[in-house]
């Protein structure tokens, strides 16, 4: 049986040759993402800003009566609703943000949700309320803080782990790659204005985990090759390591994409944001571990003898004196 090989044997792509242009592109993309987040902003969901999200199906109707729903909700005087198609044409989602100065009314979000669902059901008896999320200003603030905190802690914790298992340069390299992945994902959400909610925080943490998977596999190979080829110049060694792990990188990214794409197109619509974020993360994560995490090690000055077992004496000066440094 002839087996499939995605990457030919003895592939030798000079990844490091292009490292400077790639850095320029990466840094540009990171800054552009930050700029997008700062100017366009993230379309924060009710999890983070409070308010309510109501999903309605108009049973037996060809289409959701978006215009008339907007009028009915506006009459309640809470402001302008954001009404969107959601899945099938007869399904709609209604989002309302909390009015200014509502922090002191913990049950306002809930009262609003009650009145809106009642108004819709009164005007459209065929409406089936599929879901109501109502979050008060207080809870949404807490969710936002814990969301940010868990992201920051995850990035820090993982970097520290890598620092302990490898060397500090590797930890910093991994952290850089992570910042790249998280920034670009946020940038995508700012650009498309897809809703950014708790699920997306989960997705980003997953991306962090995945991107790191990749980075670690490459780092592990670098460490191994450093022990094996003690006199090889670092750029050459990095290139060799990335090439040696390339088959695995391609294969794993491909299988993950294959598992995710059906979920993206056939899965429940409420999972679309989460799946889209993870899918995007697989691309940026693969890129960042191949083109950023490894080449960065040159800049941070990893010594080729970082992983030489210390049984020949911890004294670096002595080794240099013996002509090994």
């Amino acid at each position, binding site marked *: 049986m002839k087996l499939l090989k995605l990457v030919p044997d003895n592939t030798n792509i000079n990844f490091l040759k292009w490292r400077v242009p790639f850095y320029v592109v990466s840094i540009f993309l990171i800054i552009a993402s930050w700029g997008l987040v700062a100017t366009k902003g993230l379309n924060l969901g009710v999890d983070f800003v409070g308010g309510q999200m109501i999903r309605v199906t108009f049973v037996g109707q060809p289409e959701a009566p978006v215009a008339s729903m907007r009028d009915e909700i506006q009459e309640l005087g809470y402001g302008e609703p954001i009404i969107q198609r959601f899945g099938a044409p007869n399904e709609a989602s209604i989002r309302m943000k909390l009015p200014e100065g509502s922090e002191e009314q913990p049950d306002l979000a809930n009262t609003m949700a009650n009145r809106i669902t009642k108004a819709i059901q009164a005007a459209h008896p065929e409406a089936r309320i599929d879901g109501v999320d109502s979050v008060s200003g207080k809870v949404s603030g807490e969710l936002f803080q814990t969301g940010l905190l868990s992201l920051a*802690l995850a990035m820090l*914790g993982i970097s520290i782990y890598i620092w302990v298992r490898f060397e500090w340069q590797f930890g910093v390299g991994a952290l850089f790659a992570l910042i790249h992945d998280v920034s670009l994902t946020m940038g995508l959400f700012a650009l498309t204005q897809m809703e950014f909610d708790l699920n997306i925080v989960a997705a980003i943490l997953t991306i962090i985990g995945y991107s790191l998977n990749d980075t670690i596999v490459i780092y592990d190979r670098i460490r191994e090759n450093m022990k094996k080829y003690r006199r090889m110049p670092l750029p050459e060694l990095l290139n060799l390591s990335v090439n040696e792990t390339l088959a695995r990188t391609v294969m794993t990214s491909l299988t993950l994409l294959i598992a995710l794409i059906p979920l993206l197109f056939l899965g429940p619509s409420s999972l679309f944001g989460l799946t889209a974020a993870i899918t995007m993360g697989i691309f940026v994560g693969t890129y960042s571990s191949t083109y950023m995490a490894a080449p960065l090690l040159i800049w941070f000055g990893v010594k080729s003898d970082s992983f030489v077992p210390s049984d020949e004496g911890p004294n670096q000066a002595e080794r240099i004196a013996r002509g090994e440094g």
Partner: protein
Amino acid sequence: MLDFPRWKKIWLWGLILLTSLAALPSVVSLAGARWPQSLPDPSINLGLDLAGGSHILLEADGRQVATQRLETMEESVRTAMRQADPAIRIGDVSTQGGRLSFMVDSASDVDRARELLLPLVNGNGLRREWTLSVVDETRFVLVPTKEGIDAALNQAMDSAKDVIDRRINAIGTLEPTIIRQGDTRIVVQAPGQQDPEALKALIGQTAKLEFKLVDQNALPSDVQAGIAPAGSEIFPYVEGAPGTGQNIAVRRLGGIKGDSLVNAQATVNPETNENVVTIQFDQQGAAKFARLTTENVNRPFAIILDNKVLSAPNINEPIRGGTAQISGSFTAESANQLAIALRSGALPVDLKVIEERTVGPDLGADSIRAGMVAMGIGTGLVLLIMLVTYGRFGFYADVALVLNVLMILGIMAMMNTTLTLPGIAGFVLTIGAAVDANVLINERIREERRRGRKVVQSVEMGYKEASRAIFDANITNVIAAVLLFLFGQGPVKGFAVVLVIGVVTSVFTAVTITRMWVAGWLRRARPTDLHV
């Protein structure tokens, strides 16, 4: 490396069998079939987003508990002073600024008053709940300690949880989860609940019932303006009552609270054909109620529920049987709800809904179906690509992957964890990541073969060298998932649980189990070349 003693094989197969068996009921029910009722059913719990239902987060206002404690203390102090022999006259009582202060009329009574106050102040004796001091010779000041307030709040939340429990159980066939969260919050999760509004109405009702005498001396214009005469307080009529939009002044003290009820039933008054709630006091409450009505015949008393007046009927005759009717423009449904709320006791503190997530049962079912179809297709494609890429080794990885899915389901069922919608995404991701371990191993075996190593040596090296990277990569995933679990909320937690279980089982199946099979094959077939 490739040595597998018999005991180890037995142990591994036993583990596979056990978890797969545990997964069976979940697989059957997720596929849409019914698991026979006669068999034990350790099937996986479906989260509210999949099964449909309501998640409600309630919060109490801690300040309210503190205020109530002051009021209760004021009543106790007044009673104690009145019942002293001879009675101690007090004045200038104030509960301003979170402290209770009053003056004793005569300085000679200070020592006696202090004696009477000490047992009230020390509570149950384990901790100081109040500090007592005397200033300006005759003024007593009682300040609640922080421990006292905290203990009261804690107690209030505990009993609020019990009350909610009783109320939800009274409406029937739910299996609700009611948990306290933090100092002032309670989470209610009711799977399959069709009408979240009714549930919230029932839970949210404080059901603090009071009977207070109407202050007939109050000036009507003052009352409407919300100005209470000394010793009285103002309450509005409840919406829909005959006096809607108006206020009423009632005597602050000397009323009866509804906490001495033994029963409450929704009934219909045969004379007026009105929906009413009939309540039954316990012995002590009945005696108090009889005394109140005897002393105040022909005067109106207000029936107050949650600080709103339901009605203010005249007392036509003393009510001695301990039974009373509450009228107040009820529908059959609202009368029944009030009866349930009263029977299960008043909430010791007001609870407000600060977060609600409801998913209709139809949407939940649709989500499961869509999620399962997508998962099935994704898994099928992954299995295929592994097979065409790695041949025999891909087949081993595929079987390990299927086992992995069964193990995750089995472990989740045994641990009684809940599968949520993001959990399904976690599942897909685990499937993708599980093959990564095998990809790493197989690529490494290919590499070692290319370098000219012998078959057995290549396989050994492949497993050995790849294991280090697999270990490091998965540890970081566990770090991310644990943080997700610790800081995540609601469905995100479900995602994290699946991820952690998935990481552990995938390493086990992808590394240990496949190695056992590969080792067995190498021993049997003694191949001279590998198709990897």
